[in-house]
């Protein structure tokens, strides 16, 4: 098969490189900051320096004239320069500490907390700027707080709603068992579709959550693949597709089982929509820290101009045909979920040659590191 690679979202690597900066680089940054600060301060006080210089010359000359001695004149000149320099440069030292602390906080992403951490300067005009900053950050924090609260309310409602809607869906499902064909299959299929959409809504809501709820657990890959196939049974059977599951028993990875199963179902759905007659779920032999799960189909494949965009939100492919779902959200959602879960996802395909989707699932996850990276 002609392999062309799509955009890979290899989240595991992505998260790792954001780890703590080394202390030597911090040191280097400090030196840079000092240089920059001093340079800009001096640049903005060039006119002051000129005035000082001129005044010193004039006063010195005057003094020399009055006292009649050139030495006295030079001495006065030097004294004026020194006094002037002290007056000019004193603020430099005073505000240096303040500026360094503020710059540090901004660098660490804590700009909203500047006014609570840094000491308020006592002199004008610094203290006026500082007060304005305090006011600004307070307003920003309050707005963010409100938004967060609203978001949490929405999420809570969403969870409740999903919970509630399962009851009428179950009832519908049961009642429809009694309807005759051909309506029965159609209605049951639509109910399954509804169920999937409800689930999708829940996952979309959770993705945007500040409080993402992942249950990292040991998951038997063969089992979760079978579960996904069972839930997709009706759709697959109606397309005349039987799954081939080539995964050794006891292949265990660490991830969120429910979300993985949802993703698998989405991928199977795509394969069916894209003309698959045969779907194979298998693992690639791998000695490393992660297991590669392949979902392969023998469908129409993805044309090369589309493949780099299939994971984009709302992407609907050439001729308006949606790869994955009519809203273009299906694969986008999968990719987002994978990224949030630290799972890699990529696609290989060529037009007319089927498609292979690969998921990179870690065997073991250092939970502490996972949580830390997620919060960043």
């Amino acid at each position, binding site marked *: 098969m002609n392999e062309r690679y799509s955009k890979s979202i290899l989240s595991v690597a992505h998260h790792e490189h954001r780890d703590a900066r080394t202390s030597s680089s911090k040191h280097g940054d400090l030196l840079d900051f000092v240089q920059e600060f001093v340079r800009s301060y001096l640049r903005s006080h060039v006119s002051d320096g000129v005035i000082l210089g001129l005044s010193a010359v004039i006063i010195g000359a005057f003094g020399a004239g009055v006292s009649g001695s050139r030495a006295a004149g030079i001495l006065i000149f030097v004294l004026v320069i020194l006094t002037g320099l002290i007056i000019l440069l004193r603020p430099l030292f005073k505000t240096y500490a303040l500026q360094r602390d503020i710059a540090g906080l901004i660098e660490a992403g804590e700009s909203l907390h500047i006014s609570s951490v840094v000491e308020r300067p006592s002199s004008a005009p610094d203290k006026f700027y500082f007060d304005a900053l305090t006011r600004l950050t307070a307003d920003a924090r309050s707005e963010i707080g409100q938004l967060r609260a609203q978001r949490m309310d929405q999420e809570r409602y969403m969870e409740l709603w999903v919970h509630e809607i399962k009851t009428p869906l179950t009832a519908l499902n049961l009642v429809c068992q009694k309807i005759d064909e051909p309506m*029965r299959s159609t209605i049951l299929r639509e109910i399954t579709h509804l169920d999937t959409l409800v689930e999708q809504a829940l996952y979309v809501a959770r993705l945007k959550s500040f409080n993402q709820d992942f249950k990292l657990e040991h998951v038997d890959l063969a089992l979760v693949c079978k579960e996904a196939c069972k839930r997709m*049974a*009706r759709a697959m059977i109606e397309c005349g597709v039987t799954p081939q599951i080539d995964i050794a028993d006891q292949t265990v990875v660490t991830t969120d089982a429910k979300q993985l199963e949802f993703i698998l179902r989405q991928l199977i759905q795509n394969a069916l929509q894209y003309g698959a007659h045969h779907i194979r779920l298998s693992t690639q032999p791998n000695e490393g820290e992660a297991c590669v799960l392949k979902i392969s189909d023998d469908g129409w494949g993805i044309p090369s101009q589309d493949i780099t965009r299939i994971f984009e939100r709302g992407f609907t492919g050439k001729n308006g045909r949606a790869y994955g779902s009519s809203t273009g959200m299906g694969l986008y959602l999968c990719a987002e979920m994978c990224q949030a879960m630290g799972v890699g996802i990529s696609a290989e395909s060529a037009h007319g040659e089927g498609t292979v989707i690969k998921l990179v699932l870690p065997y073991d996850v250092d939970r502490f590191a996972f949580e830390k990276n997620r919060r960043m």
Partner: protein
Amino acid sequence: MTQIAIIEDDRILQGELARILDLHGYSPICWDQTTDVYEFLLAYKPDALLLDLSLPRIHGHEVVRALRTEERLSVLRHIPVIVVTSSQSEYDELLSMNLGADDVVTKPYNPAILIARLDSVMRRASVSAVTSQLTCGDLAFSPLENRASSPTGSVDLSRNEAKILHTLMIHEDAIVSRSDLMVELWQSDAFVDDNTLTVNVNRLRKSLRHIGCERYLITKRGIGYVLTARGE
């Protein structure tokens, strides 16, 4: 007759559960929602209980706890309880079990699985418990044992044959499409294709022939199969 109480506030679900239980030879008693749950249970003293967690005035967990601990309900203390819930929370499941439920089933559920769980719970609860049995004319089928019998004799069925027969009997007199049968078989990890289904149905027919019930299984060409005692 084994009496099973159904405590569920959704009328449609309650009706469906009752129908499934009745079909499988159990005797369902439905809670009518206006009486107090405990009074209802004390009045009927059922052999087992299907309990929904999300009830209007009282939470299912509270009911389980009360049944297992309260003095006035001591006569019901050892009654098998299956909790039915739409919550997929493991916490809910764990809590239900810790409070004394025997099993937890989540909605949406497969009726055959619910019956299997109930059978299993009933069997654990008492040595001589009668487990579910479906009948159609002279034919009787026991899902727990995968055994079909008639006045002429009995025969053990393979897992796939049993699944097919069970599905046909649940829909007795109604035509079941080939897709439906395949969907059911897939639920027990048998990812059969069209041809394999045909093979299995033929095997079932042969098994039924052993006990003289072959005439009950009718093929509706192009649509599916039906199990009926009414004869064509």
